[in-house]
């Protein structure tokens, strides 16, 4: 095993878990075991939280500018090991090296933004709210926060939160996804190298049981979660019941609307990333492409171009630089997608490109691989059009006009992202104004907000108030304390 059995990081020490139960960490492209992750015990979860709680008072007293300097050091270390960090993600997840580098870059970008905490955390003040009386607001850290990230962006998603939490003076416990925890271990090795005080950041490995214990822990002030909608609901409810702050991001079913004036070459190329990047395993992936208008010729040209482009996608080991799509992260995830393809066929959609016929670049086991699939003439009520597939499957649909396309978007319970492809500013503005999703793309297939903007979401895609990244994250990890002052 290339990476061995991963350890917990508690109170500044790498500790072997006493857990008997373990999961295999597999490289899905090669279908080999590359590591092992323990399902940590309750005592280990408690120890991680205790360590974070004990570190909080001193960390809170550390000036924000000094706290930020640990992030500056981390940024330097991440830049120096940029490629190593990216390669680990490809090995544990399967995504292409371009995609892993993108993840690394976005993670670093979040550290850069959070390193501006002395400015971001500043309060407000007003002199003379009545004669001789001043009022001001201070932003204070709260204590211990936990992060429960998903498998699909194992390095980046925790960095939507961790840098802001610790820069603001909180302490942190993360339970990485047991499918791919290696990049978080590597990240915490670098955090340790920065000299950050013991207990400020902690890792405790495990599955649902560890997550549940964290959510219910009385010493935690808040939890961030990114995953499926059913679990996001549970996290939101559990944290509500136990009085914690929560950011819970759920699933998605994103619509990409193609107006009749869209440039087909550009649109199709952009859509390939949206539908098939990360093997479709991201909450910003395109799921349904809706072609607007009654022009059958345009629809036919779009379908042909889309299917042809999808057919040409090179599938294989993401470490090969020419590869455009890697495997699904596990065999189980592939089987789930296969189930949806079968369901789509049974529902009567036409499978114009069947990704079950596997064609790989190189001699690789097919265990976790699928090629891109395209369903055309998909009905709005079909399961493949309404449920989150989380795999490389595109559904092509039609709408008579933009309003009908928007109605289709609004019929979905999800509200993560939607995009429009058009050259018409009026249509684009109308779309942006009317559509109720957290992230809107105009000629953009993957509406991934930069680190200084919030990663938004609405409806069943998001439970909470403030979001990850940027000023929203700072707001989440701080409490406003208002002071009204008079001297006499």
């Amino acid at each position: 095993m290339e990476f061995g059995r991963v350890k917990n990081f508690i109170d500044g020490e790498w500790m072997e878990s006493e857990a008997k139960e373990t999961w295999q960490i597999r490289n899905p492209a090669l279908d080999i075991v590359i590591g092992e992750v323990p399902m940590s015990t309750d005592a280990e979860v408690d120890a991680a939280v205790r360590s974070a709680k004990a570190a909080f008072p001193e960390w809170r007293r550390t000036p924000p500018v000094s706290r930020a300097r640990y992030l500056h050091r981390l940024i330097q270390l991440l830049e120096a090991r940029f490629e190593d960090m990216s390669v680990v993600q490809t090995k544990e997840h399967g995504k292409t090296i371009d995609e892993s580098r993108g993840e690394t870059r976005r993670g670093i970008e979040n550290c850069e933004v959070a390193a501006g905490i002395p400015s971001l955390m500043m309060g407000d003040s007003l002199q003379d709210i009545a004669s001789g009386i001043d009022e001001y607001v201070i932003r204070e850290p709260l204590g211990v926060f936990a992060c429960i990230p998903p498998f699909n962006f194992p390095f980046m998603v925790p960095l939507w939160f961790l840098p802001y939490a610790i820069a603001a003076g909180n302490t942190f416990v993360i339970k990485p996804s047991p499918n791919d925890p290696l990049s978080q271990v590597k990240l915490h090795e670098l955090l340790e190298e920065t000299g950050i005080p013991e207990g400020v950041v902690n890792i405790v490995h495990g599955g649902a049981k560890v997550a549940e214990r964290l959510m219910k822990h009385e010493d935690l002030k808040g939890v961030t979660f990114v995953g499926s909608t059913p679990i996001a609901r549970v996290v939101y409810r559990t944290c509500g019941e136990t009085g914690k702050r929560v950011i819970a991001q759920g699933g998605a079913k994103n619509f990409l609307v193609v107006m009749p004036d869209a440039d087909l070459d550009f649109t199709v190329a952009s859509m390939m990333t949206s539908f098939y990047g990360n093997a479709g395993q991201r909450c910003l992936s395109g799921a349904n492409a809706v072609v607007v208008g009654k022009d059958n010729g345009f629809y036919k040209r779009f379908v042909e171009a889309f299917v042809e482009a999808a057919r040409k996608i090179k599938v294989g080991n993401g470490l090969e630089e020419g590869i455009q799509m890697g495997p699904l992260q596990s065999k189980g995830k592939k089987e789930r997608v296969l189930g949806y393809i079968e369901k789509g066929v049974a529902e009567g959609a036409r499978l114009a490109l069947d990704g079950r016929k596997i064609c790989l670049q190189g001699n690789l086991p097919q265990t976790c691989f699928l090629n891109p699939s395209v369903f055309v003439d998909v009905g709005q009520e079909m399961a493949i059009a309404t449920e989150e597939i989380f795999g490389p499957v595109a559904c092509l649909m039609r709408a008579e006009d933009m309003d009908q396309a928007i109605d289709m978007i609004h019929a979905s319970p999800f509200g993560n992202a939607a995009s429009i492809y058009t050259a018409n500013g009026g249509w684009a503005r109308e779309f942006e104004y009317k559509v109720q999703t957290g992230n809107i793309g105009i000629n953009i297939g993957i509406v991934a907000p930069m680190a200084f903007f919030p990663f938004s979401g609405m409806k069943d895609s998001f439970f909470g108030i403030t979001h990850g990244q940027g000023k929203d994250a700072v707001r989440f990890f701080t409490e406003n304390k208002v002071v009204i002052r008079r001297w006499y």
Partner: protein
Amino acid sequence: MMECTTAASVITHVSKIELDSAKLYEQWGKLHEKLRDSFEAFAKANRKNEQRVKRAYYSVVSDALETGFCFKEIRADIVIPEVSKGASVSEVLNRAVALEKEIREFYGKAANSSRALLADVSRQMEKVSQERTKRVEQLQSMAASNPDS
């Protein structure tokens, strides 16, 4: 050599052609005193170009951009020739012109095909392509000045 569509594969090819051709210019410069100053300057510029394009890519690569699909009909098949010790100055210059034209064409095509989807990298490639045009002119002018005399 198959068609390159991913940014990663194109950037690797850029590194290879710029660094290998930098070495080639240095070797040619050592063999021919007349070419030394110009060719050392070319080698230095090539290394800068490699850094410039790579930096553009590593600065903007993100989960939002279409890095897996941003190049079209690009073949990463430029082979940097070996130094042949018996070649005259004019032969070296003619080979350099041919190589530079090939590299210029590669950058031009790559910049053009990635303009919409990876604009920062495209812009740097466009600049390198323009510099290559000037270099071709310089080499042609050197070749026309009876360099073997």
